């Protein structure tokens, strides 16, 4: 069987060119998605918080957790993930509105995701995780912890309640909570 060295080299060059082109196309698609369509991972810049003191001072004190419409009109949901519960266990947000989640942990690593959405982030003690999103459908969605955080990890589960804009009624301080069932 005669295949000379030149034809081997030629076939390889062709294949390598095709594969490098394919990889470059893939890269271009990803770069377009991130720069053009702003589809990027959460927590674009670094923000730290002391896990030992976050419950006594600062934005993650208990009274400040949950959904709040800030003075500028931005909807922010602050959550503390701790062994083995979310605080609060239910977060209410308006439909079709930009929402920012700010999440911190006082103990170990946790993870947060909201089923049926692209909301997904690790929560690493020492740092603030931030996810911006917009919910399309109303209803209750599961928000489990997705990183092993100890023996009670499987029970660590919360909900996000998406309500129509008209039904989203923050109080005088801009706070909104899930109505008791």
């Amino acid at each position, binding site marked *: 069987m005669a295949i000379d060295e030149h034809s081997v080299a030629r076939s390889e060059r062709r294949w390598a060119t095709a594969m490098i082109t394919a990889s470059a196309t893939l890269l271009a698609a990803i770069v377009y998605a991130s720069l053009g369509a702003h589809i990027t991972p959460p927590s674009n810049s670094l923000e730290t918080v002391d896990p030992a003191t976050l419950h006594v001072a600062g934005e993650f004190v208990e009274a400040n957790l949950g959904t709040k419409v800030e003075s500028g009109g931005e909807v922010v949901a602050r959550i503390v993930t701790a062994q083995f519960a979310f605080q609060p266990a239910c977060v209410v947000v308006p439909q079709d509105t930009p929402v920012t989640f700010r999440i911190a942990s006082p103990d170990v690593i946790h993870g947060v995701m909201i089923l049926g959405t692209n909301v997904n982030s690790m929560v690493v003690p*020492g740092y603030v995780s931030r996810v911006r999103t917009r919910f399309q459908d109303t209803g209750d969605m599961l928000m489990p912890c997705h990183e092993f955080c100890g023996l009670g990890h499987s029970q660590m589960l919360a909900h996000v309640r998406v309500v129509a804009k008209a039904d989203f009624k923050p109080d005088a301080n801009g706070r909104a909570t899930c109505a008791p069932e």
Partner: protein
Amino acid sequence: MLRNSRLILAHLWLAFAAFGAAIVLGLWQMWVRSPFAAPLASSENYFMSVTAHGSAMGYVLTTFFIMGFGYFVAETALSRPLPFPRLAWTGFTLGIVGALLVVATVFSGRATVLFTFYPPLTATPWFYVGLVMVVVGSWIWCALMLVAMAGWKRDNPGQAVPLAMFATTANAVLWLWTTVGVAAELLFIVIPAAFGWTQAVDVGLTRTLFSWTLHAIVYFWLIPAYIAFYTMAPQLAGGRLYSDLMARISFVAFLIYGLPVGLHHLFMDPEHATGFKSVQMVLTVLVAVPTLLTVFTVCASMEIAGRLRGGRGLLGWVAALPWKQPLVLATGLSFFMLWFGGFGGLINMSYGMNAMVHNTSWVTAHFHMIFGGSVVIMYFAISYEIWPRLTGRMAPSLGLQRAQLWSWAVGMMTLSLPWHWLGLKGQWRRVAQFDYTDPAISWWTPWMAMSLVGGILLVGSAFLFLWNLASFHRAGRSAEAVPPMNFAVALHSGGTPAALNGFRIWNILVLVLMVAAYAFPIAQSFIVKPPYAVVHRVDRTN
């Protein structure tokens, strides 16, 4: 028979003993997570089992198989005795003592931190000491591979190191680089915390150091499979290696691109900003290249074999291949799973799309398919191929070997396709029990049942594998002599550039890339000085 048969068999049997135990645990874990009531189900037992399963498969099966196979290649491909066999036994002893320490600490319930041991959850220090001993044992192997290759080069000046050995040494070099990250994490942060010498840790830094190891370790695991693709499959099919040069470029590319990309495991983490995540994302796209080159060269080599065997037309050569040869069959099955696994990998690395699947069952499915499927099936086939050389006995039945390989591939697809789907739909990872009464979850039941069937098939296949290996030892010495081990010869030999016959310039390149990719992400911890997190010990009942 080989001079070092006993050494190699000791490594491989230890690897497969760990595998046999771990796969039973894996099936039990699936049962616990499923809607069907399982015996002994509790959080304590489940996470203990996950820790044992992951450590045994990821650290024991792989490391000992790779070491044993490396010693085999060094002796057969170089046709000369292994240097310092006593040191090799020292490495083995260190490794087995370390592995036993891991087993003892895990099953005493004092190391339930999973095989990724993310701080500040902290196990008993002896769990980490056990892991370090396994790694140090493997470093001895790395040194022996380097010495063996250097010795051969000294005695054969100007000649190209046989490809199988070049690739094995590339893996040794890769492993030395890879383990730096996790070794730094364990020695400087985790072990001092576990002994109680420090009370708090920089969690972001531990994750960064672990990510250094996390991607390249997978290449450490898969390089033996690629060695079999390039040097064993074409030989058994009766063909030639299409291009020795391309093969070397692929192995060097694994070494270079496997390392500076680990931050892609931290896309969803808050301790790194967009900048370095995107730098490493770009480098990650490049890691697809060596695998794509391999697909071409291996297919071209197999085509030569098929045509020499009389195959005609565009695809007639495929049918003409000797699929009865277990290693040829395994190569086909492995490539099949590689398509699915590779596609899944592209989704994972895609910066934004990663959010869709991060820490869901999709990820578990992905690494089971690509490692448990594409790679481990080649560990089986390699074992079938080298066991006659280690024992001096021919296989009693190739049919049983083929049945084992088929059942493994079918089992792995049945197990992991439902996991992919559930993960895409949001099933999250690392959970002992789900609430199947929740309507958001109840529809999972048939998919969980299907993957459980896959798990049962895999356990059956694993036992058949161990049976097949044991039957070599039971068989009488065969009348026909075992043919010597030959690796595939390249279509055209000679002309290997010096750069592709050693690792000096590639090591320099790795160093440059690692500084570019990791210097800032690591230094950041010392510049920003993030608050530390208090150590949470799991080895004390409280």
